[in-house]
């Protein structure tokens, strides 16, 4: 064992020292080039707004297909119904609240459209009612959004709620959205709210 290692040590220096030196030099060049390339590349790609991104769905594109309720990795979904009160007509018969064939216009379960009973209906004054979303119950199925939009003012709409969303690198709902309503938005403006004049 000893002799072997010694013989190899004797032979090595003259053969491999310049080789190793050259190799080391090439490696240094390669490393510097890689570092420079990586730095320049990333510097070039980091453009405005430079902020982290979050997922959001555009209510103008949304078709209420119901996949938000089933495709999100969160359970219940991170997509919830949001109420733009300034658009609401406070109707007694609410297309978002009541079943299409509701017999009576009160809060009995068989009259409600929402499968989880997440809409709270409160009497204000005759004949007006306020509708509030209980986000703990809402599963983002969008049934109420479809009802309100086709029949009422369209004050109910779906949004990714960022207190629930874990911000997957690729949103699993976005992959399955038939209307391509999902997009990345800067983290400092993470909602696409509906406004009074109908502009989302």
């Amino acid at each position, binding site marked *: *064992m000893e002799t*072997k*290692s010694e013989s190899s040590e004797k032979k090595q220096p003259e053969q491999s020292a310049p080789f190793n030196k050259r190799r080391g030099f090439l*490696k*240094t060049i390669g*490393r510097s080039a*890689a570092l420079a390339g*990586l*730095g320049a590349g*990333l510097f070039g*790609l*980091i*453009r405005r707004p430079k*902020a*982290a*991104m979050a997922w959001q769905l555009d*209510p103008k594109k*949304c*078709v209420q*297909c119901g996949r938000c309720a089933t495709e999100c*990795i*969160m*359970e219940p979904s991170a997509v919830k119904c949001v109420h*733009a*009160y*300034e*658009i609401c007509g*406070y*109707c*007694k*018969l*609410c*297309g978002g609240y009541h079943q*299409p*064939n509701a017999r009576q216009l009160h809060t009995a379960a068989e009259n409600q459209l929402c499968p989880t009973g997440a809409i709270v209906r409160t009497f*204000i*004054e005759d*004949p*007006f009612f*306020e509708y509030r979303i209980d986000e703990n119950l809402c599963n983002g199925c969008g049934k109420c959004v*479809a009802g309100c*939009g*086709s029949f009422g*003012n*369209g004050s109910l*709409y779906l949004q990714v709620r960022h207190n629930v969303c*874990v911000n*997957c*690198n*690729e949103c699993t709902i976005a992959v399955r959205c*038939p*209307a391509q309503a999902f997009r990345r938005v800067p*983290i400092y403006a*993470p*909602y696409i*709210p509906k*406004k*009074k004049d*109908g502009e*989302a």
Partner: protein
Amino acid sequence: MCRSSLAIPFGMFIVIALGALSNVVAVNRFPRPEFQGGYEQPPTVFPAARPELFGYMDIAVLAGALCLAAWLALKKRSRKGVFLLTVGAVAYFGFFRKGCICPVGSIQNVSLALFDSSFALPIAVGLIFGLPLVFSLFFGRVFCSSVCPLGAIQDLFVLNPVKVPRLMSSVLGLLPHLYLGAAILFVATGAGFVVCRFDPFVGFFRLNAPVGMIFWGGGLLLLGMFVARPYCRFLCPLGVLLGWSSLLSRRHVTITPDTCINCRLCEDACPFDAIRVPTDPGQAQEPRSRSVRRVLLHSALLPLWMLLGGLGGYFAGDALSLAHHRVRLAERILDEEAGGSDNVSLESRTFRAGTVPVPSLVQQAQAIRKTTKKGSALLGIYLGLVIGLGILRFSLQRKRTEYTADTQHCLSCGRCFQACPQEHRRLANISKKGTE
């Protein structure tokens, strides 16, 4: 204002019930009432997203963990320390941060910024992508050893690793190149983030994996008991980039802290088959002319490999383009118009409710198909190059006198340290000096 909601005919409700898909915009069918009783409208609350500061904290943790991993593997030479850091990475980057965003997936964000000028790469994502590569350029793949949550969870399952035959691991080693290329291709064509879609472990970290992921990730973990870290070695696209930069690394983990005495004790220590054994000194040297001829032959074959790969890629392009939702939608709509399918899919129903005419969709799909074909031909050329270079590397005769870590494939886990008697001698010496 006399308005009874009951006056609205129920027929309208039936229209809704039939589920006509339409883009719902706010329309002022019912003006906002003027309340008499001083009603106060509740505010619509929008909870803020996770503050960006937290993202920078993640980067600080990542940088700290990388420094620690490099120190533990290269300076302290402590397998125990690396193991503890592995557990920490599973806990923090895995279960606490729930897996997103990870450096493996960030390849796609960087590619997206490269191909789509409307997507701005966030600073945090750029750093998450760049830091492991920079560390790899200086210290080898310390990121893989104990910082990457995907690697770390697999590392905890290494139980009874078997040796994968060299030829087989070389062939399987092509998969990461294919995966990397496909990931970039699908981002470039707009088909999506394929690496995230087939992430095997993120569902485990979030404790709510869908069935497919349980089989896929669980299968990998079970396989990983015998074939150590299968995802890292035979799939991970970031491993390709880290391997390259590790080849250029300034310092790298060594099996022995001293000179190798060729005792062969470390031969079976590496579960990832990343220890290269010394060449047999007794073997008769091949005549130089013959090895030169072989190298020349395989260099000459390189363009052929690339051509073959390019052709293969070009013909695979049609199938690959189906990964894009627009191409699938166009196929579906044409199929439906030809009467091929009885029911109308939700996607095509949504598309028909929109304003885009079918011919322009078909045109768009054609354009995507064309770019996919071009891209997949490039991918094929790249794969051909990798195959050709791999064979060329096999054909080169390198003289090795010591047991050395393969800088490209070594994951710097430190399992070989304890196998080396020189290491034990070093540790004993240190403790002797301490008692003196």
